[in-house]
């Protein structure tokens, strides 16, 4: 320890100072060798302890909790980017493509990564607008609408941007902060407006739809945010089959979220195809025919501004064609829209001759609320017959009007007088006075004969069709009236601003109500779909020896994989069976058959020249009166062919008489179905 010896020397000199400064003398011990040794030892001890702590901590971090930090590092750096799955196709019964998808590039804005609102963002929008050939204002409007709808997701500004645009965006990312390009699957509807309400449309799943507890949550459970999902119609109904499973592209990102490495991808699974019962040629012809029917109505000076048709295979309930007018082009929902553009697409339909019509999204075939006029008479007839309340051979309905018990006058259309006729003739000429008397006579019986039959046939109740928004309708009866009165009274105690609307006035059920119902008027509210189900039941009973199955109407036939193999056949078992007395049913059928080909039959003119021997037609016109409007034209017909039976329902709002605007449409559809010459025949009977 020679070295220490030397160091001690100054301390000794320090010791001397004690004598020079005696006031510190007692307090300061003379520093010696032990002092320096001790102090260096303390420094060494501190170092030892610090190293000990560091090693212990490193052991804890790296050896004991290493696994956990490995996971945290992975969570930091690994991201799973979704690869969009092309949506499955929708095909007609023969495999023709009705709706398809294609994958394309979209320019999107990520709102959270945009420069802050102000000059920077405005400049970005100007640059982007110049690049995409859009006005900055339009970009802002689309961005704002998208942000409002799905606030957390990127907003697509433009689809199908050209290659040049994408190159610029890719190479000059710095100049376009918050703008990215993404592969998106875009829905394509080759036939545009055709059956648009039935197909529905797609848009990004919204936050509300993904929140537990909301009505749509079960439907969209497990869907990745930002995925395009079906919002209406079949797109909604069969969404879980159509949407497919997105693929995963795992990437490694750095702290600035830039991708630094790619990992093997899991490919997306294309959505299943949906095979429909629709027949594309028939559907197309139906759409054309419907427009022709409306043109006929307009030629007579009627507005004819809304219409629907539906053709059904009666035994199975397969819907062969169905359309509603006005319609919309679902392709427009595919492209980014501003708020006002969306409103326009949603609210204003493109009518014939450039007319603008309201409510294009409403499927009038399955969601309408209409009185049916005389097309209801066969139901009145069979109901009364089956209840034993009607003798078909007794002539009734003489005169142009009858006066009900309350003094109210009920008249034939055009105040025609058909004289006292039996049931068959009454159906053939559509004598209102006859059926007014039937309704009056039936009233008061329990159960009410007409209502009981209509209920069995499916009027005023859901049909069970595979579409999300079918209307239930209203079948008025004494019990219904009582119920509505009660609700109205209860509501009026605390009236909401918009009114109650259960009934126009609180009053008891009257014979007049039953008389109205007997001719498909009054409070009756139904739609072409329910009427088609009712007529199909009659057709099934007629073809099947008195026992009629009530079919479940449906559009979906099978779920198929993209290569065409069947994944699942969609089954829609019939709702129930209705038994008829053969003789009764034959009388009714005779009546509506006579109407189509015997002279004086309401739609005989329309079917003139039709091969009744080969394809006998059983059809009934209807002319529904609606307050403040021109009459609504109806036509219901059955063509009970052994191989290709078909039931056709047509209605034209404000179209005039049934044989003028509706029946010609039905004939065109039937012609197409049975491969007959397409002839547009309008009725000349100024009748019902």
């Amino acid at each position, binding site marked *: 320890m020679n070295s220490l010896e*030397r160091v001690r020397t100054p301390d000794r000199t320090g010791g001397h100072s004690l004598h020079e400064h005696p006031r510190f003398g007692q307090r300061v011990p003379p520093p010696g060798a032990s002092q320096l040794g001790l102090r*260096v030892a303390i420094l060494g001890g501190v170092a030892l302890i610090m190293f000990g702590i560091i090693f212990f901590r490193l*052991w804890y971090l790296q050896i004991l909790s290493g696994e956990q*930090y490995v996971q*945290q590092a992975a969570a930091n750096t690994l991201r799973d980017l979704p690869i969009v799955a092309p949506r499955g196709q929708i095909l007609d019964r023969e495999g023709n493509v009705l709706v398809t998808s294609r994958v394309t590039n979209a320019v999107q804005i990520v709102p959270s990564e945009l420069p802050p609102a102000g000059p920077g963002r405005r400049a970005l929008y100007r640059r982007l607008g110049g690049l995409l050939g859009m006005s900055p204002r339009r970009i802002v409007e689309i961005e704002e609408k998208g942000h409002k709808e799905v606030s957390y997701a990127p907003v697509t500004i433009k689809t199908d941007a050209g290659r040049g645009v994408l190159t610029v965006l890719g190479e000059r990312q710095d100049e376009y902060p918050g703008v990215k390009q993404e592969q998106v699957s875009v829905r394509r509807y080759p036939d545009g407006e055709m059956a648009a309400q039935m197909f529905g449309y797609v848009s990004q799943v919204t936050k509300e739809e993904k929140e537990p507890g909301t009505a749509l949550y079960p439907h969209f459970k497990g869907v990745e945010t930002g995925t395009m999902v079906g919002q209406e119609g079949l797109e909604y109904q069969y969404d879980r089959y159509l949407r497919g499973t997105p693929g995963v592209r795992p990437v490694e990102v*750095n702290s600035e979220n830039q991708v630094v490495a790619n990992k093997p991808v899991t490919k997306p699974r294309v959505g299943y195809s949906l095979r429909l019962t629709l027949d594309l040629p028939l559907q197309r012809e139906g759409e054309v025919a419907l427009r022709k029917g409306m043109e006929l109505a307009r030629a007579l000076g009627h507005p004819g501004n809304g219409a629907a048709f539906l053709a059904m295979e009666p035994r199975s309930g397969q819907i062969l064609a169905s359309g509603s007018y006005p319609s919309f082009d679902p392709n427009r929902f595919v492209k980014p829209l501003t708020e006002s553009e969306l409103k326009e697409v949603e609210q204003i339909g493109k009518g014939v001759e450039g007319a603008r019509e309201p409510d294009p999204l409403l499927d009038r075939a399955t969601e309408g609320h209409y009185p049916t006029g005389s097309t209801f008479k066969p139901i009145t007839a069979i109901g009364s017959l089956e209840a034993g309340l009607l003798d078909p051979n007794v002539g009734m309905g003489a005169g142009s009007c009858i006066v009900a018990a309350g003094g109210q006058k009920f008249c034939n259309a055009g105040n025609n007088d058909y004289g006292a006729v039996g049931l068959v003739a009454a159906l053939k000429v559509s004598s209102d006075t006859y059926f007014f008397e039937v309704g009056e006579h039936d009233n008061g019986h329990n159960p009410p004969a007409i209502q009981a039959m209509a209920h069995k046939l499916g009027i005023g109740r859901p049909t069970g069709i595979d579409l999300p928004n079918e209307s239930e309708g209203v079948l008025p009866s004494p019990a219904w009236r009582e119920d509505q009165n009660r609700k109205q009274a209860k509501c009026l105690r605390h009236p909401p601003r918009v009114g109650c609307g259960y009934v126009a006035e609180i009053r008891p059920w009257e014979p007049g109500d039953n008389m109205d119902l007997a001719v498909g008027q009054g409070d009756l509210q139904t739609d072409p779909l329910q009427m088609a189900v009712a007529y199909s039941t009659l057709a099934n009973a007629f073809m099947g020896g008195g026992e009629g199955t009530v079919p479940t109407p449906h559009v979906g036939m099978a779920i198929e994989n993209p290569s065409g193999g069947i994944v699942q056949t969609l089954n829609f078992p019939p709702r129930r069976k209705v038994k008829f007395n053969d003789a009764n049913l034959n009388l009714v059928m005779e009546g509506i058959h006579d109407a189509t080909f015997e002279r004086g039959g309401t739609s005989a003119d329309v079917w003139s020249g039709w091969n009744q021997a080969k394809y006998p037609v059983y059809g009934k016109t209807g002319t529904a009166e609606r307050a403040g409007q021109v009459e609504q034209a109806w036509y219901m017909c059955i063509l009970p062919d052994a191989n290709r039976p078909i039931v056709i329902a047509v209605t034209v709002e404000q179209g005039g008489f049934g044989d003028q605007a509706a029946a010609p449409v039905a004939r065109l559809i039937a012609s197409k179905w049975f491969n007959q010459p397409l002839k547009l025949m309008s009725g000349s009977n100024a009748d019902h």
Partner: protein
Amino acid sequence: MPAPLSPITAPEPSRRAQAGQPEPRTGPRLMLDPLLTLAVLGLGLCSVKILGSVTSEAVAGQPNYYSERQGIYLVIGAALMLVVARIDYARLRQFKYWIYGALLLSIVAVLGLGHGANGSVRAISFPLFSFQGSELGKVFLILALAALVVDRSRHLGERETTARVMLAALVPAMFVIAQPDLGSGLVYVAIAVTVLFVAGVPWRHLAGLVALGAVALALVLGAAPAVGVHVLKHYEVERLTAFLDPSKDYNSEQAGYQQQESKIAIGAGQKTGTGANDTQIKGNYVPENNTDFVFASIGSRYGFAGAALVLSLYALLIWRTLRILTLSKDLFGALVAGGVAAMLMFQVFVNVGVSIGIMPVTGVTLPLMSYGGSSVIATLLAVGLLQSIYVQARAAEALKGRVLRP
């Protein structure tokens, strides 16, 4: 003023000639402390290796940009170390005012002429390097304080001595903290306290200094901001306090983020490190992964094994520093060695402690490991002083032996 220990002069040639013996082969010039040299060499190599692996993509087209430059700094520093080792450190004592002046100048010059980096002004840019005054200042401060203490070695028990030494350290420390470089400022304070400690000032003075430090901390963090005086920058306070809440999940904008990511990187290194598959470092999740958080790079890439190796080299370095302290032939040398020990220990423990999340973020470099010329050269100058103390001590021992052996 009689110096308590005059520098040991070389033996007179005449006496050697009289003794008729040949010149001793191992002259003091060639002697270096082998273990100290080994530690420095090892750390230098580790530094070049780790910088080479984590910064290979930092400068486009120049994968070795940082490692090459660090290598050059190390070579320059080593050359300076050899030069200093051959100087008798004791002569530096007489230049103490010049040295103290140079210390203040280098710090004030930075404040006046410096350029900013990460929001603070710490360095002056020259064509090839940027000069960070506070790093070199550490060495100047050690020499100046040691000289001051030696001058007052007869008055070590006096309060005035302690006060003067602390004042001499606090003036440059305040300038440095104002740059703002809180870490270096704290190093200055640590050096001053350790020099006093080694010199043997009374325990109650040391206790008083600790108490004053605690009061100052309370004032700076608590009382002063309450009355609107912000001694430290907002981000410095945030960093210091964020350390107290380690469980919180920080995003990249927040103060605790750096430490959190550093801990993840080190933890993920596990036993032997992630090697080239080092996503946490490569992805730039750990900020400053070649300077203040270089230890995170080591821990992540080479795991516990690599970290333990580097820490062992630091243990060797610090042990040799303390050993040389005890070997010193005079008080000045012992105090210089004590100051260097304080500098090294403070920087190693604080830097590593920050990286592993047991100390608040203050921003000090890891000696010889962090990228940066000023830090590397200053550290090697300090090591040169240690070598000089060792060489002089060995020479004195040899002479003593010879004198005693007629």
